[in-house]
Each structure stands twice: as structure tokens, then as C-alpha cells.
């Protein structure tokens, strides 16, 4: 039996890696993928606690998180396509028209 702590530590590590990818990478699509990584890390924590407490609420919430992530990915990628068309670049530093 794997202790629940191990799962939650893994979830924290994956979340941290997702945050680092969000800060460090410059391509819009990769930044978006790091958001998905963070959501997945949180899902893992939910399912681990659901098993530990013996109730299924965690798994139901994970289903809702997955659905929301799907909707967000669809709209977000639509926005990314528009940005790419408008600025002809996928580098997030070049989208700086509002900068001083």
C-alpha cells in the first residue's frame, strides 16, 4: 500500500515544475501546456485524497476539472491562433504593444 503522502509530494513536485515551465518558457503554446501540467498535478492530489478518505467526491471533482480544462484549452488555443495571426510570432515577449 503506497502511503498518501507520496502521492501528494509527487503532486507538489509536478506543480512546481509546471510553475517553472510557466515562468521560463517563451513559446505561448508551451506556457499553455504548463498550465495543463499544473491542473494535472492538482487532479492527482484530489484522487489521492479521495482514496485516502474512502469517498468518491474527489474523483467527481477531478471529472469536472478535466471538463473545465478541455473547455479552457479550446478557447485558449483559439486565442493563441489569433495572436499568431496578428503578430506573426509565437514568442510571448513580442506581444508587447501595450508596453511603455
Amino acid at each position, binding site marked *: 500500500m503506497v502511503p498518501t503522502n507520496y502521492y501528494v509530494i509527487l503532486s507538489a513536485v509536478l506543480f512546481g515544475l509546471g510553475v517553472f515551465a510557466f515562468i521560463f518558457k517563451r513559446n505561448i503554446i508551451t506556457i499553455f501546456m504548463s498550465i495543463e501540467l499544473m491542473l494535472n498535478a492538482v487532479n492527482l492530489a484530489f484522487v489521492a485524497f479521495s482514496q485516502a478518505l474512502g469517498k468518491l467526491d474527489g*474523483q467527481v471533482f477531478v471529472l469536472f476539472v478535466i471538463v473545465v480544462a478541455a*473547455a479552457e484549452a479550446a478557447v485558449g488555443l483559439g486565442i493563441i491562433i489569433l495572436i499568431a495571426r496578428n503578430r506573426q510570432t509565437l514568442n510571448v515577449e513580442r506581444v508587447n504593444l501595450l508596453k511603455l
Partner: protein
Amino acid sequence: MTAPLVVFFVLAALAVIGAVSLILQKHPIHSALSLIVVMIALAGLYLLLGAEFVAAVQIIVYGGAIMVLFVFVIMLLNAGIEEHTSISKMAGVPGLLLVVALAGFVAATIARSTESIQATSQTGEMASTLGISNMIFKDFVYPFELTSFLILVAVLGATVLAQREKS
């Protein structure tokens, strides 16, 4: 070293390697493939936790639909190798320290927690699918209907956003 522990370490290592590879790869399509590896490893971990329905849904929706969407967009936009400017390298160092601090703090707190939750063997009496469907259609029916509305809004939004300009 029991068998579930070995399987856990293998899957956890796979997930972490996938996440690190997401950061270190230069081409976005390789990052996308690494993220798919992470999702499959997580689906394996859900199976290990006894959440079989969530594992199957994770692969079907995340691995088979959302990541396909990412791969399509990368192909259509012809994304190339990404360049790192000086700003991003400057952001990398404090970012790394911050992330290590954040993840390390959470992990250390959990590892040192004295009141460990007694994990029950599997998720109890009902099979996972039957229990989840009972909960979704009885207790959580209102959020369920709202999510279908949310998906409709997302579909409409994505269609409108990705249209060509009518000039």
C-alpha cells in the same frame, strides 16, 4: 519493496521525467509529446489508486482530445524552435529558486505531518464507475448541467475566434 510501491516509483519517475523534458525541450512538439507521457503516467497512478473510471477518462479526454488539439495547433501554426532571450534567462534563475522553495515547502510539510491519513483499501463498497455516476446524477446534477452549458459556450467561442476575417 512491495509491488505497488515499485509501480508507484516507476510511474512517478516517468511523470517527473516527462515534466522535466517539457521544460528542457526546444521544439514545442517535443514538449507536447512529453506532456502526453506525463498524462499517461498519471493515468497509471490513478489506476494504482483504484480510480479506474478517472484513469480512462484522463486518457480519452486529456490524452486523446486536448493534447491532440495542442498538436494540431502546433502543426498548423508551424511553430519552430523557440529562442531564449536574455530576459527569460534572467527570469529562470529566481524562478528556479522560487519553485524549489514552493514545492519543497509543500513537500516537507506533508512529509513531516504526523497525523497520516489512514488510507482505506480501495474506494469502498461501490465500484468506482457506479459510485461516480450515482454522485454525478444525484448530488452533483446541477454542476453537471452547468458544465454542459460551459462546453457549449467554449465550442461557440472557439469557432468564432478561429474564423477567418470576412473582408
